C-alpha cells in the first residue's frame, strides 16, 4: 500500500529545505529545454524561410508545351523500311506552337478538379527592354495577377505598387528590380519593350518586383495576360504555361504524370523541378535533430548528477525511514517524486525561457537585399517543439531519478547505521 500524501510531503520538505540543490537541478533542466526550444524554433524557422523562398515560386505542377523532336521519325512509319537500319541525321524539333493546345479548356477542366486549389494561365514572351539605344534581353510574363497573388506569394515580392494596380491598368508592367536599377526607372515611369519581331510598345511601370533571386530580377517582368497577348499579336486563347497549386503537395508527382498523358503536354511536378533542393533541406533538418538531441542528452546528464548527489546526502534519512517501517518502494517513490517535481518545474520554466528567447530573436532586425519580405529573423513557433521539450524534461528526469532512487530502494539500512 502506497501512501502518496506522506511520500509527497517528505519529498516536498526535502526539496524546500535543500532549496539551493533544487534550484540548481531545476535550472539545469530549464537551460537544456530552453536552449532546445530556442534552437529548434530558430533553425526550423530559417529552414522554412529558405524552403519557401524556392517553393513558393515554383508551382506544384507546371504544364507547358516542350519543343522537342518527334519520338518516331516519319521513316519509321514506312512499311518498306521496317526491317532496315534507318539512320536520320540532323534531326530537327517537331514543328509546333509554343502555346498549349486547347489551353483554355484544360484550364477550365483543372479549375473544376477537386484536388486543385487553383490554376493560373501564363504567357511567357521573349522581349527586349529598350533604354535609349541599349536593348536588354528578358522575359515578360503575362499573368492573371489577382489569381496569381492568391495562389503564390507574388504579392510579397511586389516592393512598390500593388497587384491591384497592375490589374487596373491596361498597359501596366511590374518591372523586375534589377532591370529598374539598370535602366534607372521607377514607379510611374514608362518603359519601351520590343518583341522579337521588332514591334515596340510603351508600357507604364505600375510597380517593382523583387524576388530576391538576382537572376530572375534582372530579366523578368510581369504584365496582364491580355497586355502580353496584344503585344505578341496573339488571340485570347494563346497561353504557354499553366501553373497548378494542389491542396496536397504529395499528389503532385502522380497527378503531373496523368495530366501529361491526358492532354499530351509536358507536365512537371515540384519534386522533379527541385530534387536537389529537397536533399539540401533534408540534411539541414538532420543537423537540427542531431543538435537538439545532443542538447537534451547533456541536460539529462546534468539532472542525473544532481539527483545522485541529492540522494547521497540523504543516506541517513533513507536508513531512518526504512528502520521505522517505510519500504524500499516508498523510499524510491520519495526520490522519484522529487525528480519528477524538479523535471516538471524546470521543464515549464524551460518552455517559458525558450519562448522568451524565441521572441527576442524574432524581434532582431534581419534586413537583406535578397529577401525583401523578411525584416527580422524567422522563428517557427510550432507547438510540437514545446510538447517534445516538456516530454523530454519529464522522461529524462524520470530516467535520471530512476537510477539513483533504485539504489536507495535496495540499500541496506543496517549498513548505513553501522557506518560501513
Amino acid at each position, binding site marked *: *500500500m502506497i*501512501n502518496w*500524501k*506522506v511520500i509527497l*510531503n*517528505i519529498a516536498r*520538505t*526535502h526539496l524546500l*529545505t*535543500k532549496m539551493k540543490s533544487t534550484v540548481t537541478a531545476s535550472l539545469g533542466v530549464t537551460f537544456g529545454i530552453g536552449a532546445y526550444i530556442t534552437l529548434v524554433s530558430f533553425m526550423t524557422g530559417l529552414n522554412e524561410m529558405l524552403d519557401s523562398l524556392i517553393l513558393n515560386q515554383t508551382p506544384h505542377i507546371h504544364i507547358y508545351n516542350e519543343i522537342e523532336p518527334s519520338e518516331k521519325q516519319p521513316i519509321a512509319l514506312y512499311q518498306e523500311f521496317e526491317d532496315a537500319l534507318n539512320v536520320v541525321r540532323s534531326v530537327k524539333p517537331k514543328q509546333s506552337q509554343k502555346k498549349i493546345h486547347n489551353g483554355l479548356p484544360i484550364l477550365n477542366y483543372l479549375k473544376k478538379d477537386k484536388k486543385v486549389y487553383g490554376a493560373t494561365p501564363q504567357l511567357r514572351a521573349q522581349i527586349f527592354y529598350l533604354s535609349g539605344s541599349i536593348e536588354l534581353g528578358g522575359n515578360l510574363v503575362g499573368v492573371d495577377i489577382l489569381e496569381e497573388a492568391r495562389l503564390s506569394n507574388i504579392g510579397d515580392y511586389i516592393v512598390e505598387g500593388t497587384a491591384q494596380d497592375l490589374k487596373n491598368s491596361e498597359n501596366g508592367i511590374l518591372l523586375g528590380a534589377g532591370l529598374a536599377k539598370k535602366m534607372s526607372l521607377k514607379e510611374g515611369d514608362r518603359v519601351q519593350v520590343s518583341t522579337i519581331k521588332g514591334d515596340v510598345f510603351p508600357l507604364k511601370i505600375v510597380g517593382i518586383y523583387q524576388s530576391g533571386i538576382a537572376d530572375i530580377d534582372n530579366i523578368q517582368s510581369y504584365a496582364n495576360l491580355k497586355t502580353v497577348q496584344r503585344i505578341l499579336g496573339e488571340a485570347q486563347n494563346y497561353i504557354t504555361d499553366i501553373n497548378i497549386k494542389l491542396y496536397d503537395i504529395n499528389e503532385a508527382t502522380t497527378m503531373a504524370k496523368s495530366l501529361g498523358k491526358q492532354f499530351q503536354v509536358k507536365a512537371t511536378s515540384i519534386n522533379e523541378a527541385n530534387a536537389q533542393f529537397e536533399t539540401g533541406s533534408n540534411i539541414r533538418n538532420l543537423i537540427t535533430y542531431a543538435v537538439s538531441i545532443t542538447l537534451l542528452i547533456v541536460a539529462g546528464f546534468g539532472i542525473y548528477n544532481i539527483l545522485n548527489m541529492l540522494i547521497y546526502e540523504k543516506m*541517513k*534519512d533513507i*536508513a*531512518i*525511514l*526504512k*528502520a*521505522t*517501517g*517505510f*519500504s*524500499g*518502494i*516508498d523510499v524510491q517513490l520519495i526520490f522519484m517524486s522529487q525528480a519528477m517535481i524538479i523535471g516538471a518545474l524546470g521543464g515549464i520554466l524551460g518552455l517559458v525561457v525558450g519562448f522568451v528567447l524565441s521572441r527576442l530573436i524574432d524581434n532582431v532586425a534581419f534586413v537583406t537585399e535578397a529577401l525583401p519580405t523578411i525584416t527580422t529573423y524567422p522563428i517557427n513557433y510550432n507547438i510540437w517543439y514545446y510538447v517534445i521539450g516538456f516530454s523530454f524534461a519529464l522522461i529524462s528526469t524520470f530516467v535520471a531519478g530512476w537510477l539513483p532512487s533504485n539504489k536507495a530502494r535496495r540499500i*541496506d*539500512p*543496517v549498513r548505513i*547505521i*553501522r557506518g560501513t
Partner: protein
Amino acid sequence: MEFVLETKNINKYFEKPVEFHVLKDISFGIKKGEFASIMGKSGSGKSTLLYILSTMDTDYTGELYLNNELITGQNHNKLSQIRNYNIGFVFQFHYLLSEFSVLENVMLPAKKMAEKSLAEIEHDAMEKLRMLDIEKLAHQRASRISGGEKQRVAIARALINNPAILMGDEPTGNLDSHNSENVFSIFKRLKEEEGLSLLIVTHDDDFAKRTDRIIQMEDGRILD
C-alpha cells in the same frame, strides 16, 4: 509466560573481508513485559543480533518469531510493515530527520501506517511527547534541539505505533549521565506503566544491572 520475541538457532556469517562466524546458535526469548539488556564486548555480535531481531538484517540462518509468528523468510515489503506495526527502534545517534519538526518526526511512522486520521495521529504524538516531557519542543526543527532531547524524541517516535517491543542500540551510549538516567527512567516507566517489552543493547553496567535480565554475549554466543 508468552514470548513476544523468540529466536531458534540463529547463525550468521560475515563474508568480508574474511569469512567470520559472528553469531553461533543463538536461541533465546523475550517475555511480554520484560525489560532485557544485552551486554558484551565490542565485536561480540550484540549489535548484529539486534539488527537481525529488528528484521532489518535478513542475511542469516535459523528462525525468528515475533508474537509467535515466523518472520524469517518474509519479503522486504512485509518486513517493513512488521517493523512499522510492531517494532520501535532507538539508535545510538538519535537519527532524526533533521529537516522536519520534532512533531513531524514523531508522526511519520503513524502516517505511514495510515490507520488513523491526521488529527488523531497528531494528538497521539503530542501525548507521547508530553509523556516524555518534551511537548514544548513539538514545533522546533529536529536539528535545533540538544542531544538528550533528540534521544527522547526518537523514543517518542519509536512508541507512536504502540509497538510490541522497543529495541535500542546503545541508546544512552552517546549521552551524559544525567540524560542517561533520564532515558533509563523513561524505559522503566514504560515497562511498568504500559507493560512494554524492551530489549536494549548497552555497554553501561549500571544501566544493565537495573534491568530485569542481562543477556551476556561473548564471541557470538549467549552466556548464561
